């Protein structure tokens, strides 16, 4: 999806791949639960996972990022698979809370809401308005999957501003927090399970890297929006095929 254009949101896909895989092959029930992709730039990772869930075909994805396609590079209202996404960052968690609140208002104890959130979004004030509200209302049916890839447009999140200590912040807001290696499938599965068992709103803080899984990427490759040469595409495909062989 990135290779035909020579640019795109590759870093987000690499950092969140295991996180989304753990959710979609684990607790997520498409017709019962809700899934919010708060940072619309991550929609590429959701689309990439969707064919394995039977929700899209590979042919669908061939139009990703093309003029006129409903598969726009930054998620829109027409984006399939997700219940909600937004390109203006920091709004998805509030939307997820709206879904969770609706279930609470209707006495629906079965439906769960999962929201992918990026660590850069922790800089937005709305995220903390939302965090406070969710704990106050006791929305235990809500789980945030935080992709803590330490990457935003201007560089590492930790260089732009200090969002740490992430887990302690959420815990102090009344959330259950699970701080784990976001590229370890077993840790992700265990954390999701504990998150669902907790009566509080919960957050799985997945520590990740925007270059994970592609050692051919040069040091300092742009984690937000990468420009990638045909040679590098070829090297990346070769690396992945070798690993999967």
């Amino acid at each position, binding site marked *: 999806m990135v290779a035909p254009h020579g640019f795109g949101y590759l870093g987000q896909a690499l950092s969140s791949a295991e996180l989304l895989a753990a959710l979609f092959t684990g607790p997520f029930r498409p017709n019962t639960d809700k899934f919010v992709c708060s940072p619309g730039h991550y929609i590429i990772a959701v689309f990439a996972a969707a064919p394995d869930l039977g929700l899209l075909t590979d042919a669908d994805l061939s139009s990703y990022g093309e003029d006129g396609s409903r598969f726009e590079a930054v998620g829109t209202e027409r984006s399939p698979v997700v219940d909600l996404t937004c390109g203006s960052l*920091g709004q998805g968690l*509030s*939307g997820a809370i709206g879904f969770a609140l609706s279930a609470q*208002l209707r006495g629906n104890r079965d439906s769960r809401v999962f929201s992918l959130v990026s660590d850069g979004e922790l800089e937005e004030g709305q995220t903390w*308005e*939302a965090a406070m*509200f969710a704990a106050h209302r006791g929305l235990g049916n809500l789980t945030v999957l935080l992709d803590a890839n330490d990457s935003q447009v201007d560089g590492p999140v930790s260089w732009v501003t200090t969002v740490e200590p992430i887990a302690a912040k959420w815990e102090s807001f009344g959330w259950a927090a699970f701080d784990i290696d976001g590229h370890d499938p077993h840790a992700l599965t265990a954390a999701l399970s504990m998150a669902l068992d907790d009566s509080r709103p919960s957050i799985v803080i997945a520590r990740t890297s925007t270059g994970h899984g592609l050692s051919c990427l040069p040091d300092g490759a742009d984690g937000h929006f990468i420009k990638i040469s045909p040679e590098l595409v070829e090297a990346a495909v070769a690396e992945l095929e070798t690993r999967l062989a």
Partner: protein
Amino acid sequence: MLNAPPYPTVLKPYGRALVDLAREREEIVCLSGDLTRQTEVDLFQEEIPARFINAGMAEANMMSMAGALARCGHIPFVHTFGVFATRRPFDQIVNSVAYPNLPVRIVGFMPGVSSPGGPSHQAIEDVAIMRALPNMTVIDVADAVEIRQAVRAIVDLPGPVYLRLKRGEIPVIFGDDHEFSLHHAQVLQEGHDVALMASGMMLASSLAAAAVLETAGVSASVVNIPVIKPIDASTIVRVALGARAVVTAENHTIVGGLGSAVAEVLAEAGLGRRLRRVGLQDTFAEGAQSAAWLFRKYHLTTQDIVDSAWVALDRTDAAPTAPVLVTPLGEYSPV
């Protein structure tokens, strides 16, 4: 039928109308941003607590939540002052409500300079910025009768609505036979010299201005335009065609609100009618203990409408003087 000033007033017509409607409509949920009594929804909180959500002083979260609630089939009515309903969560309204075209009803109280609370509390450009958003319906009603009808009229609109409401004592201008319409502006009186076109709190002063003009031999039509978007262009064009000049009156900046909307209609219809816009002349409003003082300082009075009509009609003699109305406590007169 119209009452005559000073108008009788009522308290909390909106809050009562919303509770009455919500008893019939289970989908309605009520959100408040820490201004529950001030936005009349203390009635809702007391009578239907299970569907009342205090979102606290966190308007961005409140708007995005309301959007998601609407996606789930609820009809959220979101309440705060107009300034906090439109300025702070503008991006959330754009992305979580307007672009997805969701049936969220944003109810902003304390329009324009009706608050002496300083520029931070005066919604002077809310109509302009809400009008600029695709899918948004924008309403600025004049009295308690319209308020009650508007609540019912908007509940089933498929898209979002911004409803602008006066706070506190609400005048009763219209009789019970009044019919609020989402589609048609109302011509309250016909005249052939000047057309006065008003919304919200400026309707009462426009009616008063028409009476003053009549005493000076100037015949004025008065058009009530509570729905500023989508605007009823055909009525505006028809009435303007029958007059030599047009004066708009709004408790709002003249940039982007009713006056601008009417100007667009007149220009696109090719009507060469002289236009004067009464409203805040591209300024913030400072320095008051009372709203009436601000209306005078910033030229939002009956006299200002009369004077604007006079200028628009190219009159060089002295304009007639609007009488100062004595208003008993608990009644309402335009300034």
